[in-house]
């Protein structure tokens, strides 16, 4: 009976080989598909077990950290809650949801490793993420928040030399420890990056840049500032229908003369205007290290709400040149406009995170400043700076004056709501010190009862600039 026994053993070996083959299928060959299967909750559970790194402000304040929860898992705690809710966002690993920096810097926070370290990572199954350091400034953030005093609006401050975001305030905000809580004055919509506000006269900085850098105008070019003027076949008036007569572009910016800048925009033309807008970052989502789905493009829209393609013949370039004509922008984009002028025409890529540091204190990644575009020549930048300095010294932006520190800026007061409702959207964009700009800001407040950019937004900008400069930025 020995031969059948040997054959039988052969069959058993075959059966076991079958088991090995099938085990290999699930562990190796089909593992990728199985790991990514929608029904597979393991990745989510693994995610829960990762101790995500902290998010840290410029002054060392911890904005987010992991706290141990049941069964070796972790949850997120945000010590500063509302203060940085929009910038930091939230991460709910159990539901696979995240927002803000928690999302955009999720890989670093989760300790996703690359290259050689991923091989050694196999040996340490307890994953601990890296700490992400940001340029956010809690003191200035608080000042900006106090400045808005509960009104809906936004404040964004950048370091024009690096693109580092120092302040990102948007009201209403929310407590990111409870991102799903609903209520009055609670919103996860980040007005700093997602809104579509009319920029009003602050956009004249863009028009001025296009006019001067293209060589069509100089700050001393004279244009007739009478009111009204026919723009795109429709009469356009200055504030209070005031006529200024022939004035220089410098004066026209200082007193924010609509008719002058609308004529300039028309004369410069759609093509050139669009070219400079694109250089400033319009028509695209700013490449901030922030979730793209939480960033809106700044661009003109048709009255029915459709985005005009760049340089569309249907857009009213004259009115766009003074921040009307369906133009919708984010405060972040307007801060980038100020930043580009401040940094000699060079627009730095805006960024929140500065570096990622692992648990042993080694800097594993530095997010270096990078140039996003050269918007204008340094000489144009110097001329536009001079014009903006005039605005604060003797024009509409005097409330932004900061004693012996010279500030350059531009106000804006967009009309919102139905005609005659007296509702406005005050703006201020600017930077300081003029000689060596270290701070660029954009401030806007929603639905002000007849307030002006100079009276409502400029004082907030002034305080934020003052705070940031006093910290020796």
């Amino acid at each position: 009976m020995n031969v059948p026994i040997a054959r039988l053993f052969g069959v058993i070996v075959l059966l076991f080989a079958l088991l090995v083959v099938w085990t290999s299928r699930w562990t190796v060959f089909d593992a990728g598909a199985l790991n990514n299967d929608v029904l597979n909750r393991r990745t989510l559970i693994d995610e829960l077990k990762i101790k995500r790194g902290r998010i840290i402000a410029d002054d060392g304040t911890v904005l987010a950290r992991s706290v141990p929860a049941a069964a070796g898992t972790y949850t997120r705690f945000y010590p500063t809650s509302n203060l940085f809710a929009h910038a930091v966002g939230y991460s709910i690993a159990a539901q696979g949801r995240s927002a803000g920096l928690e999302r955009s810097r999720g890989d670093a926070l989760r300790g996703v490793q690359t290259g050689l370290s991923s091989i050694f990572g196999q040996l340490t199954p307890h994953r601990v993420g890296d700490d992400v350091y940001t340029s956010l400034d809690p003191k200035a953030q608080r000042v900006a928040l106090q400045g808005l005093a509960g009104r809906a609006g936004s404040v964004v401050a950048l370091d024009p030399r690096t693109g580092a975001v120092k302040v990102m305030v948007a009201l209403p905000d929310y407590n990111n420890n409870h991102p799903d809580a609903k209520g009055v004055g609670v919103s996860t919509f980040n007005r700093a990056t997602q809104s579509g506000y009319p920029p009003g006269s602050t956009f004249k900085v863009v028009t001025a840049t296009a006019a001067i850098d293209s060589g069509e105008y100089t700050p001393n070019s004279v244009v007739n500032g009478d009111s009204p003027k026919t723009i795109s076949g429709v009469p356009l008036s200055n504030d209070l229908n005031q006529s200024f007569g022939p004035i220089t572009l410098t004066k026209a910016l200082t007193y924010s003369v609509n008719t002058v800048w609308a004529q300039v925009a028309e004369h410069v033309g759609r093509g050139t205007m669009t070219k400079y807008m694109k250089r400033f970052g319009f028509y695209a989502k700013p490449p901030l290290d922030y979730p793209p789905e939480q960033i809106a493009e700044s661009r003109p829209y048709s009255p029915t709400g459709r985005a005009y393609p760049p340089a569309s013949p249907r857009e009213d370039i004259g009115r766009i040149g003074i921040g009307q004509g369906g133009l919708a922008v984010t405060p972040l984009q307007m801060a980038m406009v100020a930043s580009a002028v401040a940094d000699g025409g060079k627009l730095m890529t805006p960024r929140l995170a500065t570096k990622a540091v692992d648990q042993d204190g080694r800097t594993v990644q530095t997010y270096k400043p990078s140039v996003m575009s050269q918007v204008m020549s340094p000489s144009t930048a110097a001329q536009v700076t001079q014009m903006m300095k005039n605005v604060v010294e003797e024009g509409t932006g005097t409330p932004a004056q900061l004693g012996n520190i010279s500030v350059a800026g531009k106000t804006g007061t967009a009309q919102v709501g139905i005609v005659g409702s007296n509702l406005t959207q005050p703006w201020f964009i600017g930077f300081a010190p003029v000689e060596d700009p270290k701070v660029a800001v954009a401030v806007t407040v929603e639905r002000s009862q007849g307030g002006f950019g100079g009276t409502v937004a400029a004082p907030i900008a002034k305080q934020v600039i003052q705070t940031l400069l006093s910290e020796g930025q």
Partner: protein
Amino acid sequence: MSARNRELVCLIPASLLLTAGFAGVFIQRSNVLSNVSLTYGAIFLGLCVAGHVFIRMTLPYADPYMFPLVALLASFGIVMVYRISPTLARQQAQWFVLGLVLFGVTIVAFRDYRKLEQYRYIIVLVSLGLLILPRLPGIGYQANGAYLGVRIPGLFVFQPAEFAKVGLVIFLASYLRDTRQVMVAGARRILGVTIPPIKYFGPVLIIWGLAMLIMLVLHDIGSSLMFYGGLLAMLYVATSRLSFVTVGLLAFVIGAWYIGTHVPHVHDRVDAWLHPLDAQLYNKVGGSYQLANSMFAQAAGGLFGQGFGEAALNIPGGGPLLPAPQTDMIYAVITDELGLFGACAVLLTYLLFVARGFKTAQLSRDSFSTLLAVGLSAIFALQVFVIVGGVTRVIPLTGVTLPFISYGGSSIIANFVLLALLLLVSDRARREA
């Protein structure tokens, strides 16, 4: 080196694995290496040495590798069960002690195991009775649609099939010893195929009927396959006729197909097997949730596994991620934590044990001993195939245990009796050789 000394040396890997395994689980649990892991290792090693000394005294010629292989499997099993639940591991250790006692009792009581033949009809009746028990109202219970357990309230729970498998093998070994010559002698060839006389198909038909009955009554394809395959293997060895096996397998496939499509519970199992990742089946009660998560667990393990104690078994703050990890799904947990390599090592250990069983069968001089050793080894191998095959989706999933590794008293005790019988056969065969 004498057989017994070889056996003693071979126990070393088992105790090392046990100590290392416990150390691994402890480190994972609390980041400290407690001396409890050494205590566990020492106690377990002590039990193994006790078993070894007992074999040395009673069965000096028995195969030297079987007991160490079982010790290896059992020590590995207790680490896995401990990692799943320390409470269950303590109970498992108790079952292990009881198993060893019964192992000793079997060896002492059946020193001449051939006297088992005298009781073959009692044994077969008791075995069949055991198989039916789970369907008896009051004490039988159903798990996942299959009837495999008996619960005597307040006393204990046990799986009669574990014991029935040993009984049926003893009976068939004895029965085939008597009839194998007749079955072959009366055969004739039709169209080149050797067909035994119809009347000698009797035993095949009975076994087939039994397998179908198991499937119908217990709703379980896997157990049925295990019994049928084991008994068919014995028939093949007894008669050397492939035709029996071919006809037998064909009949099984037809029967299984019919029942698989017509009995709802079995049909559900087959459905889950065919489409484990179907969202509807996945979310259905008694659907493919367990099987799908078995596959996910294995995928998570990859080549080398996540390490002892690293597999996710529960949804934090929720239900089980992998139902029945300590019994049916223990192979998936092993693959998750030790990867393809660990799983293959376990399978290889089983294969080595089965190989020693078959070797014993080849060395045996009388038909009963040979058939007994073949039957026990084959049914043991098929039990591994049925549960691992179920977990890895080779065949529909069945709730049988992974011998010596899964948690469960019936399984441990029955398999120790199986080991005792194999060692008895081996001792006799090698003494004569």
